[in-house]
């Protein structure tokens, strides 16, 4: 996995639950789970914007690049 979504870390920092975040950004919990597990093929700019707004953070706080071994 090259791109890691640090949504769980941000959720813990903001003391927010997954369900609450999903409701705030307007996606289903199943889709949020796909994002968290890195199974998503693409991420819409609007979703990223909503995530940043809901978690009060920058895109860089949510995304991390790791080199595959």
């Amino acid at each position, binding site marked *: 996995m090259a791109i890691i979504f640090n949504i769980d870390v941000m959720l813990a920092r903001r003391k927010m639950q997954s369900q609450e975040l999903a409701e705030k950004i307007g*996606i289903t919990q199943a889709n949020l789970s*796909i*994002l968290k597990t890195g199974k998503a*093929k*693409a991420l819409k700019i609007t979703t990223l914007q909503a995530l940043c707004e809901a978690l009060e953070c920058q895109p860089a706080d949510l995304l991390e690049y790791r080199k595959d071994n």
Partner: protein
Amino acid sequence: MRIIGKNSILYWSKYPFLVCTIGFMASSAWICGLIVLQLITGKFHSLVTVENINEYKIIQFKYPFSQMVFTAENSTEGILLAFWGLISVSFVLLYSLRIIRQFANDHIFSSKVVTDFKTLSMGFIIFASVILFIDLTVERSNYDFTLPLWYMLAGFVLLFIKEIVDQGKILQDQTDLTI
């Protein structure tokens, strides 16, 4: 009115198609049974008769509950081709029905449709090869390439459609996983 999807032309036509397919397959099973019985015993009776029409010897297999007959040339090749023809048409109807049902339920780019298209196309190619084999080996003096060529062409066209559906499925998966 829509052509594909729920409450579409295809959705409502699947029911008469289902009835026709079941009817054809049931009657084909009956005729195939008579053909196998005739090939094993070689005897003629009220359900299997031979007629001479002009210079052709025709074998007739009687359908149940009707006066309809299934006719074939009274030779090993003729009977084998008739038997194989019934099986191939039944197979094509069955797989067409499966694809129609998927399309009628809005499942166009699904793995089931891809598999059904692949099986149907391979079926056509195998049927064409077997017809060609029977035609060329049983009675070498009498052969006709028209039917196997059409079958082969249909097989390759379906294989081409299968590739398109497969590409569509990949795109659909990507769209579904775009969040």
